[in-house]
């Protein structure tokens, strides 16, 4: 890579990449020290989107905080909602109904698809492939229609509740989702024909931003970035939660840990997610969605508006000091979000608000490892590597 570059001048240039740059997808900043076109040093700066989510967690009650989790990884809010309530439920020691677990898997996998699709579109757009962007956004739009019909919102979904979900799937949801997963592999094939053997795409991503498996573990990389290095680790398999042990799927791995492998891993993960979604729809259990424990679950709206018991339960849940109160203790719960390990570490003092909430975001670790992947490469690779990591500023800075 350095062969053709004569470092004749020895003059160094400092280039500030971001905070506003079309390829950062959020407010990130990388300070690059360049010699000609090669990157000598890269220093990532975080914190531009720091919002104090962890501090907020100490002041909002357990159900209120779900709204905050939407804003972490804003490309897959449903996965954040899911990971958070799972941590609270495990701390409470309750398990939601089978149907609810399946609905949550369904939504988590659809949001994985949406996340990977947005990643695919923007990563390709950064490297000049505009058609891919249009193709993937066309598919993503179908998913967002499903999200909108299910949760009432496209981005700020806030779908889960402690002990359940906001509401059951809408009538016709199954048909919509089935139609999507039937057509989607064909649509993804179009992207494969555009990129996978594309000479430009391969030149820009193969061998670029490579990281070894040992370094990836040392830096704490997770998710597709870890699996691209050849480690078949997926929390859904290693520590199954919410009935993930009942669905079968493969964990795709790469070999070189470069941007191209991360691309291939994500592409295959989308196909696997479609498989999971189909299995979930085939085996969707009947029965109640929410736990019928009025100390844990919000009553449904018709009850809250139409019956005195429902109204009382509603007030009991939302009133300070009467609602969801996990016993004193602490718990760390990890879920496999589209970007990797999303962990919530909750310390409870027995009251209605958490004593401490710590979010372990995957992007924080990926962004930290960026210099390791950039240094020694070319300045134009910066965009390719940053794109391949899918660093989301919302969860990076929290």
């Amino acid at each position, binding site marked *: 890579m350095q062969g053709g570059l004569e470092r004749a001048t020895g003059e160094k240039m400092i280039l500030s990449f971001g905070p506003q740059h079309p390829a950062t997808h959020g407010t990130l900043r990388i300070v690059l020290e360049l010699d000609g076109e090669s990157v000598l040093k890269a220093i990532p700066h975080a914190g531009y989107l720091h919002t104090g989510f962890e501090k907020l967690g100490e002041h909002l009650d357990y159900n209120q905080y779900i709204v905050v989790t939407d804003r972490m990884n804003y490309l897959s809010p449903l996965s954040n909602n899911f990971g958070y309530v799972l941590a609270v439920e495990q701390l409470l020691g309750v398990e939601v109904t089978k149907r609810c677990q399946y609905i949550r898997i369904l939504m988590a996998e659809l949001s994985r698809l949406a996340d990977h699709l947005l990643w695919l579109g923007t990563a390709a757009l950064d490297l000049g492939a505009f058609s891919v962007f249009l193709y993937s956004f066309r598919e993503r739009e179908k998913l967002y229609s499903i999200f909108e019909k299910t949760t009432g919102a496209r981005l700020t979904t806030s779908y889960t509740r402690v002990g359940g979900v906001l509401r059951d799937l809408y009538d016709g949801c199954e048909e919509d989702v089935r139609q999507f997963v039937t057509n989607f592999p064909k649509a993804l094939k179009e992207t494969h024909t555009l990129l996978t053997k594309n000479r430009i795409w391969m030149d820009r991503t193969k061998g670029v931003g490579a990281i070894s498996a040992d370094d990836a573990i040392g*830096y*704490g990389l997770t998710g597709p970035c870890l699996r691209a290095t050849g480690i078949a680790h997926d929390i859904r398999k290693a520590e199954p939660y919410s009935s993930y042990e009942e669905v079968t799927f493969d964990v795709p791995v790469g070999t070189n840990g470069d941007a191209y492998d991360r691309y291939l891993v994500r592409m295959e993960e989308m196909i696997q997610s479609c498989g999971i979604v189909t299995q979930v729809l085939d085996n969707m259990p009947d029965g109640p969605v929410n736990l019928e424990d009025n100390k844990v679950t919000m009553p449904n709206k018709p009850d809250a508006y139409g019956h005195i018991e429902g109204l009382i339960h509603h007030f009991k849940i939302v009133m300070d000091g009467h609602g969801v109160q996990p016993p004193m203790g602490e718990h*760390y719960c990890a879920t496999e979000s589209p970007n990797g*390990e999303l962990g919530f570490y909750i310390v409870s003092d027995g009251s209605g608000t958490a004593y401490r909430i710590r979010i*372990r975001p995957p992007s924080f670790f990926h962004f930290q490892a960026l210099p390791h992947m950039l240094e020694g490469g070319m300045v134009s690779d910066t965009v390719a590597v940053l794109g391949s990591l899918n660093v989301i500023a919302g969860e990076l800075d929290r």
Partner: protein
Amino acid sequence: MNEEKDVEEQPKPLVLEKLEAHHSDALLAQDEARGSVVLVVRKDQAYAVLEYLKTDPELAYTYLVDVTAVDNSQMESELMQFDYARFMVVYHLYSYQGQGRVRVKVPVHENDLRITSVTGLWQGANWLERETYDMFGIDFEGHPDLRRILMPDDFEGHPLRKDYPLRGRGERESFNFDKQNV
């Protein structure tokens, strides 16, 4: 009766067995809660324990999941239990060799916020320790670059401490931008 009880009892996790054999004097408390082993370790031996957990070939906790801290100043029970140490630095580790998760907690007193950095063991600890320093003021000794990471460099105070109010200490009002509008 006794036999039945023995069958029901889970076998002791390997990590606890090995630590009791090698670092028993470092352990202040141990617990097993919700699928994770919890260890409370004396500060002066925390580095040795973490190094042991990482390098022991059977345990191989090679993946540092998280480093954070908890300000226990309003948590009376924790304060009582650990000699009124205000902060608890919390390490989460994971073993890819099937040993599962372990949480190592280290009590840190307010009058001596220093603790040995683990950046030499895991590269990924760098930013995690910076964030813990930024939010709690824990001083990681031996850290190559202990600066603030999320808050601005000239920020004063440590926002996740319990005595730091939710709405800040007037930082926003002191912006020139706001003064012009008054």
